[in-house]
């Protein structure tokens, strides 16, 4: 085995493979494309500059603020080649949230695309850990006192020269932030070993090779993007990035570009179906479809099977904390009576999945807990949260997912709801308490309850609504303030002022009663003001 085949770290593995696939196309984004040589030469140049000019390397974090253009992907690879950890920011998040992520991550450097260069002053102002800003597309940011690197300093470097990560690499490949119940996002650091464990697992159920074309649909702050990028580039395949505003036309994109592999949340497929764009045999080139992130209904799976008749359909399940996905269920279509919800299946080989009671005993129904080489060591700089979510049993360290499940010998694990207030809104993981916290402050109300809503009962949530007890601030002002603090999918559709809040027998807010509040029905019928 050649040295660069050893899964030491992601950067070394990727650059080793790029040297063998130089002329193959690695990336397509908005009509532009890069070969492996071009992608890795650009990334290597940035990596070298980060190391030489700023001391970026193992143990340091590099944040990335970019639309899903070539710059975003080049910057991710560059960070890994520098031996550092990448922290994706999201141009669709409010500035305040991106600042919060930058601050929590303690990022040392920030790479930014041209479109967001003018914003950068506001994003980086007063953050103590940040020392370096790079603009791979050129230019500098006026009024920013940090050290800045432009296109010349970040110019490409020959692929045959050794990349910094090949002599020294860090523990973590990436640090993602997910919604946190305390009002601030929580950091999930994922190691190189975690990523390799995931790739080994997913490869047991699919064979992706150099002739494959993988679709990349989700934001880079969503860890399904990790599957897309690294399964692709460790296979010599090509990644096709679909821009944000064309995601729902992606069935057309599949046939126009002969895409062979798809990963999305089931909501995306549901919306395409609803729009009448899931036509039979419209995606004959697809060989692998993965759905992840929320409950997959049998009706969506069946409609998908008709549209992509040559594709395996696999429901994969897992939280960010256990690296993309942890278990898989292969759906066999053609069922007369499709299941309401497709099972989660069995964990990947070598990973462990079990159901535990609140007191830590294994049982047939309980909280889904995960152990194995895909599971993170703990939350970012939050030992208290780590202690709450992780425990030792049977000689293993388990992560509590917060999902409830049961087990069936034929179908494997089955999803049975949440053990807490976490929901998925359009596939995004959201802690309702985080929204409640923001609305409480902005509406100046003592008590706020936030509920998800869907277009039909039982369907995935499309948004949320807030009930605020005697708020001092009006709805429009509160909504504006929420938009400045929360990602769009977390901003309530409506904020309803109430003079009385229902409570259950335990003295807790009665969410069940609020669900049947007449206003909820009106929102489902006509969500926008």
């Amino acid at each position: 085995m050649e040295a660069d085949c050893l899964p030491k770290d992601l950067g070394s593995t990727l650059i080793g493979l790029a040297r063998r696939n130089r002329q193959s196309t690695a990336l397509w984004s908005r009509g532009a494309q890069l070969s492996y040589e071009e992608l890795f030469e650009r990334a290597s140049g940035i990596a070298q500059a980060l190391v030489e000019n700023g001391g970026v390397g193992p143990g340091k974090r590099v944040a990335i603020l970019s639309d899903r253009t070539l710059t975003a992907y080049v910057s991710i690879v560059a960070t890994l080649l520098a031996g550092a950890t990448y922290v994706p920011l999201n141009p669709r998040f409010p500035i305040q949230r991106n600042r919060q992520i930058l601050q929590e991550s303690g990022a040392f450097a920030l790479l930014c695309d041209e479109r967001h260069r003018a914003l950068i002053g506001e994003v980086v102002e007063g953050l103590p850990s940040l020392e370096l800003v790079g603009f791979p597309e050129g230019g500098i940011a006026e009024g920013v006192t940090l050290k800045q690197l432009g296109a010349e300093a970040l110019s490409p470097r020959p692929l045959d020269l050794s990349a910094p990560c090949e002599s020294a690499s860090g523990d973590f490949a990436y640090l993602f932030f997910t919604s946190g119940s305390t009002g601030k996002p929580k950091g999930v650091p994922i190691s190189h070993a975690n990523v390799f464990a995931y790739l080994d697992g997913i490869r047991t159920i699919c064979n992706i090779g150099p002739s494959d074309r993988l679709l990349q649909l989700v934001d880079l702050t969503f860890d399904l993007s990790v599957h897309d990028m690294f399964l692709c580039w460790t296979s010599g395949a090509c990644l096709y990035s679909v821009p944000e505003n064309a995601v729902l036309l992606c069935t057309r994109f599949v046939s126009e570009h002969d895409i062979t592999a798809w990963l999305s949340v089931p909501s995306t497929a549901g919306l395409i179906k609803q729009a009448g764009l899931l036509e039979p045999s419209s995606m004959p080139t697809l060989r692998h479809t993965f759905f992840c992130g929320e409950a997959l209904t049998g009706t969506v799976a069946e409609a998908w099977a008709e549209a992509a008749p040559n594709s395996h359909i696999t429901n994969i399940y897992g939280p960010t904390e256990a690296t993309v996905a942890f278990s898989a269920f292969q759906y066999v279509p053609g069922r007369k009576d499709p299941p309401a919800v497709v099972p989660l299946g069995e964990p990947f080989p070598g990973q462990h999945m079990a159901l535990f009671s609140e007191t830590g005993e294994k049982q047939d129904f309980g909280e889904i807990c995960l152990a194995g080489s895909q599971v993170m060591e703990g939350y970012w700089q939050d030992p208290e949260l780590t202690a709450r979510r992780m425990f030792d049993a049977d000689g293993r360290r388990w992560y509590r997912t917060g999902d409830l499940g049961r087990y069936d010998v034929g179908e494997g694990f089955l999803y049975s709801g949440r053990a807490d207030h976490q929901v998925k809104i359009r596939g995004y993981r959201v802690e309702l308490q985080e929204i409640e916290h923001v609305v409480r402050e902005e509406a100046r109300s003592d008590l706020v309850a936030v509920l998800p809503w869907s277009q039909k009962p039982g369907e995935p949530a499309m948004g949320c609504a807030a009930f605020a007890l005697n708020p001092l601030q009006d709805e429009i002002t509160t909504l504006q303030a929420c938009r400045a603090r929360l990602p769009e999918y977390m901003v309530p559709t409506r904020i309803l002022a109430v003079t009385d809040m229902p409570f259950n027998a335990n003295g807790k807010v009665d969410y069940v009663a609020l669900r049947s509040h007449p206003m909820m029905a009106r929102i489902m019928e006509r969500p926008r003001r």
Partner: protein
Amino acid sequence: MDSTSRQVILDQINAIVSDVLRLPDLCMDEATTANDVPGWDSLTHIQIIIEIERKYGVRFTSTEVAQLEDAGSLIELVIKHS
């Protein structure tokens, strides 16, 4: 295509967007972007595109839709396909 025809297409697109988003008072110009219009998000974008395709009997490619930047570029796309 003269400016009168562009205005006609803009008015028709305005009517479609206003109908999909339930904004009766909407008044777009060629520089209007989705960000300027309340409720024009990734979910409603597809409805708007599909309604425009129906109205003009055309079918855009996903790449064309991805490159749309404002109402003006939407008009160009309609002209190109009609």
